[in-house]
C-alpha cells in the first residue's frame, strides 16, 4: 500500500485513494478559500437574466426532443459558428478542429492532458487560475512560472520564453483574473517565441467576449494556426450554470483532444449547446447592454476607490478588477482575512493567482451595484483605520 504523506483517512477507502488525488484535495484546501457566509461578497457575480432568445432556444431544443447525445465533439452548427469566429479573429479553425466542452475548465484540462505528461514541463504566465496549477500538478508535469509585473501590465518578456525548455506555454488574454489584455503585437511576439521553441501553446481566450472595446486587427493567422485556443460561454455570455466551453486545436492535435473529450464526458449537454448557439449567433443588443452595465460599474467603483486613494489595474475586460492594496498591507492574504473578520467583506487576495498580483485584491464587477458600493465603502474604511502591520 502507498505511503501516506497527506494523512489519508485510516479507512478501507481512505487507504485506497490515489496519492495524486489526495494531493489535489490538499492543494485545494490550502488555496485561499473565501468564506463568504454572512459577508458582503465581492467575489461572486450576481445572476443576470439571460435574454429571451437564448432561453427560448433552450426550450425549443427541448421541444424538438434534443435530449439525446449530440455529435461527440458538439452540435455541428455550434462548432461551425465557433470555428468561423475563431478564424475571423486570426486563429484558424474548422468544425472538425473545434470541440464543445462542458465548460471552459474541461477544455483547459483536456488541452493540458493532451500536451503534457509526467515527464514534461508547462510554462505558465501569471496571473493564473489556481485550477490551472492544480490541473498541471495533477497530470504530474512540472511547472515553470513567469511572473510579469503589474507595471508592464502583465506582459512577459520574450526572453523568459526563449530561455525555457518547457514543452508548453499556457497563457490567457484577456485575463479573467486581472481583466488585462496582452496587446496583439506582444501576444504574437510571445506565441512566436514559444512556437519557435517547439512548444505547444494553450491560449485561454475565454475573456474575449468580455472586452470593453472590441478587438482590433485579427491575430497573425499563420501563427494562430499553431495554437490550442480555449473559450467559454460563462463570463462573456453569462451562461455560468449551463457549462459550455470549447477548444480549437491545430489539425494534427485535434484528433487526440477529441478522443480525450469522448473519454471524459462523451459529449456536452445538448440543451446547453443550443442555448450557447443562440447566444453566439442571435441578436447582439443584450451583449452591448451587458458590456455597458459592466462599464458603468467599473467607472463607479474606480471613482469610489480613487476618492479613497486606492489605485486599480485598469481592466480591458470584465468582470475582474484588481485593487492595489500594497500601501495598506504588504500581505494580501492577511489583509483579506482582516477584511472578512473586521469589515465583513469577502474579496480574493491577488497572491492566489501568483506573485504578479501579490498585494492586490481581486473583486468581481458582476456583483450587484449596491453591494459593490457598500463593499468598496468598507475597503475605504480600512485605509482610514490605518494599517495593522
Amino acid at each position: 500500500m502507498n505511503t501516506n504523506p497527506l494523512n489519508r483517512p485510516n479507512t478501507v477507502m481512505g487507504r485506497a485513494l490515489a496519492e495524486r488525488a489526495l494531493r489535489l484535495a490538499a492543494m485545494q484546501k490550502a488555496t485561499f478559500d473565501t468564506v463568504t457566509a454572512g459577508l458582503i461578497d465581492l467575489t461572486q457575480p450576481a445572476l443576470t437574466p439571460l435574454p429571451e432568445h437564448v432561453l427560448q432556444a433552450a426550450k425549443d431544443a427541448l421541444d424538438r426532443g434534443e435530449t439525446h447525445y449530440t455529435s461527440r465533439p458538439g452540435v455541428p452548427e455550434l462548432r461551425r459558428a465557433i470555428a468561423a469566429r475563431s478564424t475571423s479573429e486570426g486563429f484558424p479553425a474548422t468544425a472538425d478542429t473545434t470541440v464543445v466542452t462542458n465548460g471552459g475548465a474541461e477544455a483547459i484540462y483536456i488541452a493540458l492532458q493532451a500536451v503534457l505528461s509526467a515527464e514534461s514541463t508547462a510554462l505558465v504566465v501569471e496571473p493564473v487560475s489556481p485550477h490551472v496549477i492544480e490541473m498541471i500538478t495533477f497530470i504530474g508535469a512540472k511547472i515553470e512560472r513567469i511572473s510579469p509585473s503589474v507595471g508592464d501590465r502583465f506582459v512577459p518578456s520574450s526572453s523568459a520564453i526563449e530561455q525555457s525548455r518547457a514543452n508548453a506555454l499556457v497563457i490567457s488574454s484577456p485575463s479573467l483574473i486581472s481583466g488585462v489584455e496582452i496587446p496583439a503585437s506582444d501576444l504574437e511576439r510571445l506565441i512566436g517565441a514559444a512556437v519557435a521553441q517547439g512548444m505547444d501553446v494553450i491560449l485561454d481566450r475565454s475573456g474575449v467576449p468580455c472586452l470593453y472595446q472590441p478587438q482590433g486587427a485579427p491575430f497573425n493567422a499563420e501563427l494562430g494556426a499553431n495554437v490550442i485556443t480555449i473559450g467559454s460561454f460563462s463570463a462573456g455570455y453569462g451562461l455560468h450554470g449551463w457549462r459550455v466551453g470549447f477548444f480549437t486545436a491545430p489539425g494534427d492535435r485535434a484528433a487526440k483532444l477529441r478522443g480525450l473529450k469522448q473519454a471524459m464526458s462523451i459529449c456536452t449537454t445538448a440543451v446547453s449547446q443550443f442555448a450557447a448557439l443562440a447566444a453566439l449567433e442571435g441578436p447582439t443588443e443584450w451583449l452591448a447592454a451587458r458590456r455597458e452595465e459592466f462599464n458603468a460599474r467599473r467607472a463607479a467603483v474606480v471613482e469610489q476607490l480613487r476618492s479613497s486613494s486606492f489605485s486599480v489595474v485598469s481592466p480591458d475586460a470584465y468582470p475582474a478588477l484588481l485593487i492595489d492594496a500594497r500601501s495598506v498591507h504588504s500581505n494580501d492574504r492577511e489583509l483579506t482575512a482582516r477584511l472578512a473578520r473586521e469589515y465583513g467583506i469577502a474579496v480574493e487576495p491577488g497572491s492566489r493567482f501568483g506573485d504578479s498580483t501579490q498585494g492586490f485584491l481581486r473583486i468581481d464587477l458582476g456583483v450587484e451595484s449596491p453591494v459593490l458600493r457598500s463593499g468598496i465603502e468598507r475597503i475605504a474604511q480600512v485605509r482610514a483605520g490605518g494599517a495593522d502591520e
Partner: protein
Amino acid sequence: MNNSVSETKSINIFDLQELARSKKDVISMGLGDPDLATPANIVEAAKRVIDEGTTGPAPTRGLLELRQAIARKLARDNGITADPDTEILVTTGGQEALFLLIQGLIEPGDEVIVPDPRYTSYDAAIKLAGGNMVLVPTDEEHDFELDPDEVEARIGPKSKVLLLISPNNPTAGINSPDVVRRLAQLAIERDLIVISDEIYEKFLYQGAKQISIASLPGMRERTITLNGVSKSYAMTGWRIGYLVGPSEFIETVAAIKDMVNVQAPTVSQWAAVEALDGPQDSVEEMRQIYSERRDLLLAALDDMGFSYGTPHGALYIWANTASTGIPATQLSYLFLDKAGVLIFPGTGFGDTWGNYMRMTLLQPKEILTQAVERMRSALNDFRAEQEKPVADGER
C-alpha cells in the same frame, strides 16, 4: 465477381460511424443512446426552471435537492443508505463519473479486475491513471455472468479494484444475487475496493433480479456505486450521473470534479430531480418496450443461426456470429454496406471478441423488423456469392 471473406472490408467502430454518417437510410443499432424521448414531466420541469431563471451556478457536489433525491432513490431501490451532504457526488454524466473515480483511486501499477468483454471507456480511464487491467473472461454458456472463482484466481498483490457492471454493457448479462454475495465476500477477504456500475439497473427482463453490492454487510465502506439518469430515463443528452461512496472518497473525488469541470449543468440537475422524484411509470413502460424488442431480435437471431447468452438486462444483445464464418469486423461492414444497418463488432469491447457483435434494442419494432430483413438478405446474398462456382478467367 466472387467475394471472398478476405475481400470483405474489416472496420472499427469509429470508421463504421463515419461511414454510417455518409450513407442514407441507415438503421443504427450501434450507439447506446435510447431512441425513446425523455419523459414529458422531466422536460417540462426543465422548461419551468429555465422560465424561473434558476439556471445559475450550482455546488461542485451537485444541487442539494438532487443529492437528496438520489439518497431517497438509493434507499428506495437499492437498499443503500447515503448521506446527501457527504456521500454523493453529482457528475456530468456517467462517463465523467467513471473518469473521476478511476483518477481518484488508481495509482500507476495498480490492478483493476475487469470482466471481459467490457465497456472500453474503462480501459481509457485506467490507462490514463497508469493502472493495469486484469481481465476476467465471461462466456456465453453462463450468460456472461461473472464467475467468482475466475475473479479469485486473478487476484494478486497489486489488485486494488474489482469492477462490476451489471446489467452489463455489452453482454447484457447480470450478476445474480448469489454471485454478488460471493463477490462481496471475496472483496472483504482480499481487501478489494468494488466499483459497481449500475447504470442499466432499471432494465431487467423475464423476472431477472439483481442486488446492489453496497447494500450487503461490510460492503458500504469499500464500494463506489456509479449510476445516472441517462439510460433509465432516456436522458443521455442531459449529462447527469452520480457516484455514491464513503465520505473520504467523495471528498477527494469532488476535488477532481471541481478542477476539471466545476459542476454538472444546472438545468439538467433540476431535470434529474424530477426524474428521480417524479412518477416512475415511464421507466416500466420503457422496460416493456425494450423487452418486446429484445424478444423480436432474439427470434430473428435464432432464425439467422446466431447464438447468444440470454440477455437478462441492459439495452443490448451480444450475438455470436461465428456460424457465419465471417469475422465480426467484416460482418459489421457487410451489414452497413449492403444492408444499411449499423452494428458494432465485438472487437470494440475487447480485442478477442472477433466473433461477436453488440446489437442495441434502441429502435422501434417496425424498424428493427426492417433491419433484420435487410441483414438476413445481405447475409443470404453473401452466402450465395460464396457458394457460386468460380468462373474461368476469374480465378
